């Protein structure tokens, strides 16, 4: 019982310590892991950024955005076109800013659509981007796709850690601020939120754009990992669906939910892909169906239930222990 008491009184300290340990693990990872593992983890971190920033907007407001691939791809193409012109950190900032601006435009036009229509539009956006970028690339540059100059694995990895930490931190800060409350109220009842003084259009567009900025920045960093990109690779709907699967698996109720989902599915994807090649989507699909059927609130949604169960068992045991002497007398 002392352990449970210790945990509950020093919750914050333990959490900070735990996060610190994870950071140390990440920071020292390239020292003992192979090149391949570092690349895998870099890509998992890319998924973490996509899933967390997707949940920042869609997980709270309930607006099902299928657009991550559009913003991610924009970042990839920013890198593809600017890699020889500008320093890498500057391109990351540009990728984020481009996606932000694009999301503001898209948001102003589409965020009045609700439910299904918003999802369909954002899906259409990804398809549109694939086609238009391909068209422009062929017409203006006379090529289809291009290779990206490699950047040192470890450097990419550390930059990605930085972006992931910033994304999670900003998402956390938004969640616990009045903006977070406004987002949840929009998800709960948008009309009521509007009547209680929330400028819902502004909140939605702004947070949608913030989340897009992280996706765009992640795209810039992903480009040298992919080494070769064309419009079909950069704007693949896969990058829209994966973050959503991850966020749903992890649970969107808490900030770290999508992180958990991204780590599990990201690892699963790379392993399955290397072993089953094209069949991995099949196994993947089955796993997703099972999750949606049996774990609708995600892995992190399961924690409070487990905790309550555990508490019930403990108090039952206690009662039995206390009850025994009575039974004997």
């Amino acid at each position: 019982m002392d352990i449970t008491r210790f945990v509950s009184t020093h919750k914050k300290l333990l959490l900070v310590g735990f996060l610190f340990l994870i950071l140390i693990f990440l920071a020292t990872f390239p020292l003992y892991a192979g090149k391949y593992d570092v690349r895998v983890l870099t890509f998992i971190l890319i998924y973490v950024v996509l899933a967390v920033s997707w949940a920042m907007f869609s997980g709270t407001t309930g607006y099902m955005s299928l657009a991550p691939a559009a913003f991610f791809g924009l970042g990839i193409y920013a890198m593809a076109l600017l890699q020889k012109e500008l320093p890498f950190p500057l391109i990351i900032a540009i990728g984020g800013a481009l996606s932000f601006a694009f999301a503001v435009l898209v948001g102003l036009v589409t965020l009045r659509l609700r439910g299904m229509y918003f999802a369909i539009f954002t899906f259409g956006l990804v398809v549109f981007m694939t086609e238009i970028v391909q068209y422009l690339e062929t017409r203006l540059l006379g090529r289809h796709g291009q290779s990206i100059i490699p950047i040192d694995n470890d450097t990419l990895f550390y930059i990605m850690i930085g972006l992931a930490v910033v994304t999670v931190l900003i998402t956390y800060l938004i969640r616990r601020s009045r903006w977070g409350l406004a987002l949840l109220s929009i998800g709960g009842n948008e009309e009521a939120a509007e009547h209680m003084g929330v400028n819902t259009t502004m909140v939605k567009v702004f947070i949608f754009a913030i989340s897009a900025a992280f996706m765009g920045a992640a795209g810039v960093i992903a480009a040298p990992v992919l080494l070769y990109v064309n419009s079909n690779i950069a704007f693949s709907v896969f990058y829209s669906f994966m973050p959503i699967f991850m966020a749903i698996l992890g649970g969107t109720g808490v900030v770290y939910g999508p992180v958990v989902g991204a780590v599990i599915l990201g690892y699963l994807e790379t392993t399955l892909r290397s072993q089953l090649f094209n069949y991995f989507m099949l196994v993947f699909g089955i796993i997703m169906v099972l999750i949606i059927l049996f774990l609708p609130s995600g892995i992190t949604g399961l924690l409070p239930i487990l905790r309550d169960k555990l508490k019930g068992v403990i108090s039952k045991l206690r009662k039995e222990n206390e009850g025994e002497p009575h039974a004997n007398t």
Partner: protein
Amino acid sequence: MPILEGQGVTKLFGGLAAVSDVDFHVDQGEILGLIGPNGAGKTTLFNLISAALPLSSGEIKFKGQKINGLKPHQICRMGVSRTFQETKVFPNIPVLQNVLLGAFFGTPARISGAAAASEANQALEFVGLSAMGATPINDLTLGSQKRVEVARALATKPELLLLDELMAGLTSTEVGEAMELVTRIRDMGITIVMVEHVMKAIMGISSRVMVLNHGERIAEGTCDEVSSNRQVIDIYLGEETHAGS
């Protein structure tokens, strides 16, 4: 000077006039009861005042300032708050956070987290739900959910409060409590317009009553004047007498 005025307020849905050329005024500090049969345009009028719907024609002024054409959140920040006929609480966040939202966003001034929390708690206490702050909203009864809506509206610091059928679906004990609550809100200095079908409540606490039928204002006056109005008895109270007998 009236706190709220409407002139020639009209709302057309296609060819149907849901509210047709209605003039009205609400005086500072009063409780105005708004009654009429189903479909008379009472809720539509609320929706026009709070900008949930745009006017087809006419003008609405709050404290002498034209407010039609503004967005709902702007109107809320000016000091007009409302509740909904079918409760529109936020089911995904606990009771206190529901009210907190009103405190954070309902006023033009930016308020600190601590100040918002204390205001939300005050509002919850005012409606008698201070023990329920952490409860998930769906665990509350309809009556309590309506109180949360009132607390949420109060947290926006309104000068004018629109209550849309606060008492519909409540037990008679709850109706009594709700009437007492409305009077206490009025005593705080907040002007109230209430749509209600519960006649006992309307006649018990309204300072004035306005009657709508088919989108038109057909009578207005004190409770006694209205309840002795021939036209009102025919189209409204008359029906109820028949139903009762």
